[in-house]
């Protein structure tokens, strides 16, 4: 049976969010259960094995790639998008559902651009009038922030956008 840690390790490669970020959502255990229920342990194990090197499975394996899409979609939106083939549980195939209101709130798509799922967080009166950091510009990065970044994060900085580091430090 695929463990939560294995599931998270797989999800890091698929989502581009690191293990700490994924654990912080509080959804890792729930999402593992959802995927096990919807796709079965055999498929999920295959996906975990194929994802050892990080990233999505071989483009030649379309069913596995479809599962990779579903897992990534789940993390980004809190919604199980459904699978084109029937699940082993007998649930009708292709029926999408929102896992929970909490899952909606934790969708990574909002975090990807520094926002929150609509309705979930009180951002304060007038917050919408304050400019967000410009993600194309490196001049917004405060050097006092970057000095706090340890070697692991600095490595991540080569693959993600500079402003993500700023928000990671702020957290």
């Amino acid at each position, binding site marked *: 049976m695929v463990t939560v840690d294995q599931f998270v390790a797989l999800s890091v490669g698929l989502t581009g969010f690191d293990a700490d970020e994924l654990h912080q959502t509080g959804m890792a255990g729930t999402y593992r259960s959802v995927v096990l229920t919807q796709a079965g342990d055999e498929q999920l194990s295959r996906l975990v094995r194929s994802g050892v090197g990080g990233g999505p499975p071989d483009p030649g394996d379309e069913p596995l790639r479809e599962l990779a*899409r579903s897992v990534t979609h789940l993390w*980004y939106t809190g919604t199980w998008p459904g699978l084109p083939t029937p699940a082993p549980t007998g649930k009708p195939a292709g029926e999408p559902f929102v896992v929970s209101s909490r899952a909606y709130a934790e969708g990574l798509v909002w975090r*990807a651009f520094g*926002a929150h799922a609509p*309705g979930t967080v009180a951002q304060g009166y007038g*917050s*919408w*009038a304050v400019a967000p950091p410009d993600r*194309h510009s490196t001049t917004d990065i405060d050097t006092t922030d970057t000095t706090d970044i340890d070697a692991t994060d600095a490595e991540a900085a080569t693959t993600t956008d500079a402003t993500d580091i700023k928000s990671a430090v702020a957290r």
Partner: protein
Amino acid sequence: MSVRDVRRWDVIVVGAGFAGSLVARRLGQQGWRVLVLEAGHGAPDVDRGQLDAVEAHHAALAKVPNSPYRTSIAAPSPDVTDLSGSADGTFNADGYLVQRGPLPYASGYLRANGGTGLTWTGLTPRMHPEDFSAGDFGHGRNWPIGYGDLEPYYEQAEREIGVAADVDEQREAVGLPFRDGYRFPMHAIPRSTLDQAMAEALDGRTVRDSAGAAPTRLRVTGTPHARNGLPNPAYDGGAGYRSSGGGLCEGRATCVPICPSQAKYTPLRTQARWSSSVALITRAVVTRVRLAANGQATGVEYRTYDEGTSATPHDLTTHTADADLVVLAAHAIENAKLLLVSGAANSSDQVGRNLMDHPVLLTWGLMLRQIGAYRGPGSTSGLEGFRFGPARARRAPFRVEIGNWGWTWALGPPEGRVAELLRSGGPDGRGLFGPELRRTLGDRIGREFAFQFEMEQEADPANRVTIDPRHLDALGNPRPVIHYDLSEYVKRGIAAAKTVSDQLFALLGAEDHTRFEPGPAWPGWFEHDGHPYAYRAAGHGAGTHIMGGTPADSVVDQWQRCWDHPNLYAVGCGSMPGVATSNPSLTMAALALRSSDRIHHDLLAHRRPVQLRGATATTTTTTTLQGSDHP
């Protein structure tokens, strides 16, 4: 007031939404005994209902206007998800409304306590003085009243529902007249980052909407809001303003369909201030207005029901209620349906006709830099210069809303962009994953924006609501049958709006992603002059019991009183002779308050010299009101 204690009511109000709740409050305040009948469900208590609704919305797969609220099988609501488009450009409708086309009536409404006023966006621009004589431009009808008649009631409505706006900006940029020294109850809601970026690029520039037309100068203008901002100490001659409920706007970005901080006005706030002489029954579907041989309304017949978890309503009971005066406030389409079922008010043959809405052209794209999409109210500013002027003779006028919530209205929430990148992103077109997916979404979603062009639709008797005994709902009541189309005038307006959009994108240097292709997502798809367009709709149904100057060609008089029945009123947007370009709820509220004064006067005439009941009803009030009716 307990329903059992009353054998005969002074007033029955049908519908506990925007207009009905206001009328009940005014009349209750004056001591009249008012029974309000609401067809849909009510929440057991306001705060619990609110929490349930927020939770339901977050967990809903399709986050549409009605999704937080409990809808009813016994009193069905049309939902935007009832419609879908086909690849050949036609549409399908499988909901409550029977849609005969040729184009779809694309708005929903909500039958529940509070009505569509629960889900509304909370924008409250006034109509422009010119809108009251729109018929002079050769399209649609003139109003029997002018801006000046409504102006005092606009002020009252702005107090009642709590409006935040800058009076000087409204005067200069929109051209609205205000009483000297008038201030809105609250300071203007701050402009979004997107508004600021727009103003930087657009203010002072000009665009043309057709060859030969005078150019329109652009000015990004704040929109009045019915949501709690900072009170203006200068309001009411220095008396200031205190909100009647809810917290300060917290920028949670779900005004439609539900404001978690209750900063947005809903009719439930007015209901909380109803006097003890007002009684509400929910799950009470009015089936007809009862009329006496002399044309007087004597009351209504209604059916109560229960709906547990089962799919069918049960415990159906038929009741009658008697009253001196009946007010229909059930929504433009429901009011028309009730009048038609009752064989009432139709000597002009105009009941159900002149159905209008705000068809909305959406255009969408990406700004050059991050503008913080999906924050704050759905729209905080607009471009007002296309609402009036001589161009109105050639094409429908429109108001331009600047949309803060990305591409949600056009293409759905960002989940759709995630799915698309997973499916077809990446160098091989077979899906984007990992850090590259995160980077791409992070770059794009926060730059999403949309323009929302709300088109005036003129009164056309062929656009209409009818009933047909072959189409009944679960209770055996007729479902509204809709005939609806966009005129050449509206289509020319939409085409003009698109050319304006093209110029705005060029001035902004923004990436235009607008595409209209027939298919499931665009039931309102059509071609005009060889170009494809598609519209959504703003939920602003109007005109079905149209107001006019004579009984020959209108259903209600300037007081929203049916010409054919002196003690039957039909209130709400259904009375509007023109829907103009402004979001209509504020005007509906002003009209309802104006009618309330008239109803009070009617009741006094009928019941004089009975003494008034209730603490707030004093001789002074009576004198003032009578005086104002005989200036």
